Structure formats: structure tokens, C-alpha cells
């Protein structure tokens, strides 16, 4: 039986002193004192997992959304660069082609179906992403090209660093933290955790995958070979 993903929440011991201190902070600093939410992601064998996408949604209070951004996904040396972008709903993405060969970009993902007819350079306006979900990108000429856009409606999001960690300042409250990675083997539902960011200035959550990731795309294969 595989071990379940584990969540740890750190809570302070609380008590009257802590409550009084919190009240003082509230009175002095105004509403919504922030705390640091620290998320660490591990592989099943305990190694840090860099590059995992973490999204955080508040379970209480008014709905919040991250501000839309304008992002760029380039095509360099017959690869998308970067190979993963996380953008809030409503964002736009430009897809320049910096290669000397033409590309023909498509997605048939339910979150955004689109295609950019054969092109080089930057002939098309940015594409608008107005629905949350995973958008898988491909090139209809070069099958080895593969990249992802995660369009999220979460107000806080980011990717784990080389040490498998990511942190964000959030108001105290209850949150749902979700993890996503393009090469995950398990259901995303298994990697969602709820936690309360309470009295302490810091809350820690450790997520551990129950299955190893799928192998990464081979990177050292000559582009002239068929896929």
C-alpha cells in the first residue's frame, strides 16, 4: 500500500499571552496580519522536488484573484522556452518564434483551444487565457516540442525552488494548497491539503508524492532526428 501524501501544519502553543500579543498586533497594525506559508515538496524517496507548481486559495473571506499578467513563451532551438508557465486567469501570452524554422503551435486542451498558423518571428497578437486549467502546447511540425501553461484562478501561486520549497505571505486564515507538476502520476486531488495559518508567523506544509514522476523529456537528442 502506498503511503498517503503527508501534510504537516505548524501551530504555535497559543495561550493568553499569544492572544494578547495578536490583539495588540491587530490594534497597532490594522487588519489582516500576514504570516508566511512555507510549502516543501518531496519525491517518494524523500528528495526535494524543484519546479512543482503550488497554488493557494483562501477558504474564508472574500474571493481573491491574482492580477492578470502578460507573459512570453518563446520557441528556441525547436523547444518551448520556458517549458512551463503559470499564469492567472485573464492573462495573455505571446508566442514568438526565435528559430529559423517555422512552427505551427496548437492546443486542443479544454481550457484553451487555439492554433497559430505556420510562422517565424512574431506575427501574431498575444493569446488570451480566460479559463482555468492545464493547456498543453505542441507544434504540428515538430512533434518533440511540448510545453504547458497552467492557467490558475488561485490568488497565490508559484513554483518550488531547487530545494523543493516555496513560500508566500498570506493573511491568517484557512487555505487549500494544491500541487501540480506536468509529470505527476497521481491524481491532483491527492495532492491538495487544507491548513490553517493561525497564530504563528509561519506555517509549514510538507507534501510528499506517493509515486515517482514520469521520466523527464530526453534533452540531449539531436533535433534533426525524428521523434
Amino acid at each position: 500500500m502506498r503511503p498517503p501524501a503527508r501534510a504537516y501544519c505548524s501551530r504555535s502553543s497559543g495561550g493568553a499571552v499569544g492572544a494578547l500579543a495578536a490583539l495588540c498586533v491587530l490594534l497597532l497594525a490594522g487588519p489582516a496580519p500576514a504570516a508566511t506559508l512555507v510549502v516543501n515538496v518531496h519525491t517518494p524517496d524523500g528528495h526535494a522536488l524543484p519546479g512543482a507548481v503550488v497554488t493557494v486559495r483562501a477558504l474564508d473571506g472574500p474571493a481573491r484573484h491574482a492580477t492578470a499578467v502578460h507573459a512570453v513563451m518563446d520557441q528556441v532551438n525547436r523547444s518551448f522556452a520556458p517549458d512551463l508557465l503559470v499564469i492567472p486567469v485573464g492573462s495573455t501570452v505571446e508566442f514568438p518564434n526565435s528559430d529559423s524554422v517555422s512552427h505551427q503551435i496548437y492546443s486542443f486542451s479544454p481550457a484553451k483551444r487555439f492554433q497559430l498558423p505556420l510562422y517565424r518571428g512574431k506575427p501574431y497578437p498575444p493569446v488570451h487565457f480566460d479559463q482555468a486549467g492545464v493547456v498543453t502546447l505542441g507544434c504540428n511540425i515538430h512533434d518533440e516540442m511540448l510545453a504547458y501553461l497552467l492557467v490558475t484562478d488561485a490568488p497565490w501561486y508559484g513554483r518550488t525552488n531547487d530545494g523543493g520549497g516555496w513560500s508566500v505571505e498570506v493573511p491568517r486564515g484557512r487555505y487549500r494548497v494544491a500541487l501540480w507538476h506536468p509529470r505527476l502520476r497521481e491524481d491532483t486531488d491527492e495532492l491538495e491539503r487544507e491548513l490553517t495559518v493561525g497564530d504563528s508567523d509561519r506555517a509549514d506544509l510538507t507534501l510528499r508524492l506517493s509515486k515517482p514522476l514520469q521520466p523527464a523529456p530526453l534533452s540531449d537528442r539531436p533535433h534533426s532526428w525524428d521523434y
Partner: protein
Amino acid sequence: MLSGLRPAALLLVLLAASATGRATDWQLSLDTRLVSSDAYPSFMEGGLGTVRFGSGDSGVRLGRLRLALSQPLGELWSAHLDASVFDDQGGSVAGLTEAYLLFRPYPFAGYRFRLKAGGFYPPVSLENRAAGWESPYTLSYSAINSWLAAEVRIIGLEGTLEWLGTRSGHAFDLGVTAGVFGWNDRAGVVIANNGFVFTDRQTPLFGRVGQPGVAPLNGAEPFMEIDRRAGGYAGLEARYLDRAVLRVLRYDNRADPTDIDTLSHAIAWDTRFTSAGLRLEADHGWTAIVQWLEGVTTIAPQSQTFNWPFQSTFALLSKRFGRSTLSARYDRFAVQSNVADVYGSQDGHAWAAAYIFDADAHWRFALECVRVISSSTNREEQGGPPLATETQWQLAIRYALGSTIH
């Protein structure tokens, strides 16, 4: 009529280029060889040697001079031409090894359809994945793929439907392919007369094999339509991410083995085969390929039926270290014969080892040794030993340039 196809195809591409305004992608490469061989003369020279260069060819040779053009035709169509010069063509100076139109509409709901029309290889080889249907692992192709290079080509239509699972959250892609073709009624003439060989010489479309006037091939044309009956093939392909490819294909040229071309007196060879192959790629540059092919070719002139069942298998292991690739391949091959004197029967195995150094995008250096140990009734009939070991060394230097080579 057929000789007019080449200029017509070139004209088509040039017209299309000027009409669409889209740039033509091109590649030009020159591959020269320093050869040392103790082999018998090759099938192209009318001999029964099992490698491309016989002992008489030792010295500096032309490996291949190649010009490839690729031209988008509108949004979803493209034209592809691959022209080559080999120095052992028995009269044909240059030819097109492949020339086809490709229709590649956008994927829809996770599926993609592709249509190829023209002259091209059936999707059998897992080894010949580099530009120009070359192997990036060795200079000489495996017995299976050398045979395809010599006398098997699709001149017709191929449709492929793929389920793009890796684009919709899965680890697999699946594809089914089917094709109809003509002008391959002579596939079988090389394998029945010469057996399996190890070469990287690709017979151009409508080109010849052997030397005119020299038995047994007499400059035969593998790409002829004799019985006006279309051949067909169907195959499956499964992929696991970019790590594994599994291919299975059944080919039948459906030639009428009793039919003879009235003009040239060429006999139709009824050839069918089944092939399967698996290619695995792993981190750190490792590649492993196994391929298997089994088939039979039959002729039945003057109410006699002669057939030659044939089988071959190879395993290849390759490792890339930076710009270097080190590969080794082991082939087994056999041809049986029901002819009274077992004409054409062959049995053998071969080792190939190659070191390839890609200095940059333009220059490639390769060193290869192929050793073939085979028994052959035809060689014995010609006064040679029934069992022979042939060894061919090649040092290759290739320079390539083009619009996509930087």
C-alpha cells in the same frame, strides 16, 4: 513517362515556392569515404558481396551527395524532395530517394490525421531516423533496412491516424497507418538473387539495381508496375513518452507472380512481409533497438512456382557521449529457397561497430567496421566458398549546409 516525374516534381516545388512566398528549407551534404574492404563485389556491381564496397572499391569513394528540399504549400500541405548521387548506380547518375506531399491538419480533440502522397519509405525502420533516411548510429544499415533501401518503397498514398495521448495528460501516443501503392512489383528481385546485404546505398525511385548486362540482377528496376494491381500495408505504432516506440507493419505488394511485363520481360515478384520493432531511449544517451522482419517473395512464370522465405533480426545498442556516438549492432539473416538447386538460399550473421563524431552542425566524422559471416549457395555456384567472412572498414567525412543547419 516515369523519367519525366523527377523534373515535374522539382518544377512543382519551385512553382509552389514562388506561389506561396514561403521560404524553401534546403540541405546539401557531401559524404566521402575512405574504404578498406576484403568483400566480394557488391550487388550493385553484379557480385554477391554482402557489404556496399567490395575489395575492388577500397580507396576513396563517394558515400552520398544529397540535396533535400522542403516547401510549405499553404498552411497544411508541404512538399519534400530528397535527391542523391551515389557512385555505384550502374548508369543512373542521380535520383530521388523520396519525393512526397504531406498533408498535416491540426490535431482535433486529441486526434491527428496525416496523409502522404508520392514516393517514400513505409514506416518500418526504427534505425533510419536521421535526415535522408540515414542511420545516426552506423554508416551501414541493418540487413532489414538495407533491404528496404535497395528495393522497397511506397509509391502511393499513406494515411495515419494518431491519438496524441501525451498532449492530453497521458503517457502514451497511439497511431494506425495504412497505405496503398503501385510500382513495387519487383520488390524481391534483390533478396532472392543476392540475399540480405549491409549497405547505405538507397535505390532512387524508379532507379536500377545491379549492372545492366551482368547477371543476376541485370540492372533490374524494383520500382515497376506490372500487373496493375495495387499493393497495401497496414501498421500500428505505440509510443511511451519520448522513451519507447513500438512498430508493427504488414506489407503485401499483391503482385501477380504469374505476370511478366511484355516490354521488358520483367517478372512480377509477389512479396509480403511482417515487421516489428522496438526502440528504447534512456537518459545519458542510451538507445537500444530491436527489429524483426519475416516475409516471402514468389514468382510463378510458366506455371512453376518459386519462392524465397526470408527472415532477419537485429539488436543495436548505442551510447552518446557529448558529440560522440558509439554503437554496436548484431544482425542475423536467412533466405530459404524452394528452387531445385536451392538457388538464392543464404544464412548468416553480422557485427557492426561504429564511432561517430559530430564536430558541429556541419562536420561529421565516422569510423565503422562491418563483419559479415554468411553461407550462400549462389556464391558457391559462382566458384566462391559456401561460407565466407567479409570485412569492410569505412572512414567517413561529411559536410552539410542548409537553411536549417547552423
